[in-house]
């Protein structure tokens, strides 16, 4: 691992690895570091990235980290502050999943991902905005106000405040891009880490399905949901991914019994001879020319690093849209049936009987996009439609996974765009949910197949907006993805660029 001398940089320009070593060397305390980022969060409150901050809680965690450093019992990430997507439940902060339904909810436990990072010494800066129950591609469905705001509003893209941050982990991407946190957690069901990372010019990875525990992640679509880190560099993502993955066999029934790995181990391996598959379906008509140019240039960079480009085909790419938007809502309609106004969350004020209480509570607590997906899911699981929609989608899901298997026979990883365009203007797709669904086309296939995928800054497109390069690995090949991303970042500086005014 390379540790750059970082003495001349501001604290907020340091990455996770650099901060960890500076704090360990006592060049700066955990408390000073946490305070610095809390100040940054306050200064950039207009970006609407944080939905919950509690300085007392954060500083108490930082003091405890400093005490462990003084006592010689520090963890590997001791004192490094990061923020969590508000989809992870936390004891010390409210958890809303971006929904009125959970406004003010206090979890009695920490999500496994949160607990694993805390066990390594990570300090929590607060909770970050996301689409309601992670359903959205622009963070515009968030239904709780950000810190310092009176009404709910989408986080602003730090590169152009009139544009969306992407979603659903939009707040996470904004916090990292605007240096309000050196890193953040995100979750990815159909692209919710990769797409906002691309839109905001940061790096993010979702591991193979089953690597990261879903325990304490507010459930959206259980067969797709995965947690992962978002940071500025692949090196930092590797450190955090190593900390947050690992078996959680008693608490998550789909957690895989595979030991935690050191994903940093091969960051510096050469890419000589690496075969990068380029799926022709990712470069069709729908791809905007500016995005294509940046992605093509990134692939050229890889050739310069010794990689070979191999044409591959993923023929069901377009089908991944209906397949995903059947399976995910089906699972969501089941998962969200728990919000009934009884055990936690919102309950309507006035109702006539139990059924009326359910209906009014859910009508008031859920936003439009959540209601749409519950309706779609309820319909495709209902008697007479289950085989035609839900089962059919699950069968095509297998075909999509088989297409990847065939592709990986001739290549080591797959590269392409993350999204067809750069971040669009806030409000542009707000009344056209299907347009948002179609824009997920390049991230959905890897999600459906359960493959690891990441986004890294590849350059800039129209109006100088960031463009992300997507890398997709075979099952359990996270270390190889991170190696390829790190080598790209040694040869380029897109990931180090900061938006103006940050």
């Amino acid at each position: 691992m390379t540790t750059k001398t970082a003495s001349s940089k501001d604290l907020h320009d340091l990455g996770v690895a650099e901060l960890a070593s500076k704090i360990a060397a006592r060049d700066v305390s955990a408390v000073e570091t946490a305070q610095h980022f809390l100040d940054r969060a306050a200064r950039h409150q207009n970006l609407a990235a944080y939905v919950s901050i509690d300085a007392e809680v954060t500083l108490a965690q930082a003091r405890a980290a400093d005490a462990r450093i003084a006592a010689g019992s520090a963890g590997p990430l001791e004192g490094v502050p990061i923020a969590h997507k508000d989809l992870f439940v936390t004891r010390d902060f409210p958890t809303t999943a971006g929904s009125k339904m959970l406004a003010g909810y206090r979890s009695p436990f920490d999500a496994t991902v949160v607990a694993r990072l805390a066990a390594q010494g990570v300090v929590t800066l607060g909770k970050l905005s996301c689409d309601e129950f992670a359903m959205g591609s622009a963070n515009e469905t968030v239904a709780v106000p950000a810190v310092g705001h009176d009404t709910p509003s989408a986080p602003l893209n730090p590169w152009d405040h009139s544009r969306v941050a992407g979603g659903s982990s939009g707040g996470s991407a904004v916090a990292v891009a605007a240096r309000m946190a050196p890193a953040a957690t995100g979750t990815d069901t159909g692209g919710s880490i990769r797409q906002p990372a691309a839109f905001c010019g940061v790096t993010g990875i979702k591991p193979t399905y089953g690597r990261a525990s879903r325990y304490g992640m507010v459930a959206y679509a259980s067969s797709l949901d995965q947690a992962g880190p978002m940071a500025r560099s692949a090196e930092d993502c590797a450190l955090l991914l190593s900390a947050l993955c690992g078996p959680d066999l008693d608490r998550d029934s789909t957690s895989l019994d595979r030991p935690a790995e050191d994903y940093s181990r091969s960051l510096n391996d050469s890419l000589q001879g690496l075969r990068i598959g380029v799926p022709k379906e990712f470069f069709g008509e729908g791809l905007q020319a500016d995005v294509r140019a940046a992605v093509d240039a990134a692939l050229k960079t890889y050739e310069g690093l010794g990689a070979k480009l191999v044409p591959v085909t993923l023929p069901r790419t377009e089908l991944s849209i209906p397949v995903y938007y059947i399976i995910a809502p089906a699972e969501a309609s089941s998962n969200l049936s728990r919000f009934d106004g009884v055990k936690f969350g919102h309950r309507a004020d006035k109702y006539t009987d139990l059924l009326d209480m359910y209906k009014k509570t859910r009508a008031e607590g859920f936003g439009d996009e959540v209601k749409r997906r519950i309706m779609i899911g309820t319909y495709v699981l209902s008697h007479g439609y289950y085989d035609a929609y839900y089962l059919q989608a699950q069968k095509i899901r297998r075909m999509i996974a088989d297409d990847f298997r065939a592709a990986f026979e001739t290549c080591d990883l797959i590269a392409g765009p993350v999204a067809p365009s750069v971040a669009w203007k806030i409000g542009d797709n707000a009344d056209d949910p299907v347009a948002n669904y179609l824009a997920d086309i390049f991230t959905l296939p890897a999600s459906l197949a359960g493959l690891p995928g990441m986004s890294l800054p590849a350059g800039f497109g129209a109006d100088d907006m960031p463009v992300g390069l997507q890398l997709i690995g075979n099952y359990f090949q996270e270390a190889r993805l991170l190696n390829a991303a790190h080598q790209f970042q040694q040869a380029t500086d897109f990931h180090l660029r900061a938006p103006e005014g940050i």
Partner: protein
Amino acid sequence: MALTPQDIGRIANLARLELKQDESDRMLGHLNAFFAVVEQMRAVDTTGLEPLAHPVAAFEDVALRLRPDVPGEYPSREDSQRSAPAVENGLYLVPKVIE
């Protein structure tokens, strides 16, 4: 095959959602636009294919586990009920169900 306003009412009831008239109208438009995109999926020949539930099962055998049925460590009742809308003496309160 487009959904009708009656379908929307039936699905909303199954989903335990009260939709206002204008919400139902918008929902009908959005769902029909969505199912137009889904049509291409219905034509795919999937004869003989097994549905894929756990995606990693496409790569290796994935067995659903059972755990021993023994008490573990769980949050206290008080902590668990802290965010409930109506609680009395450790019990959740709901409208009367049985007359």
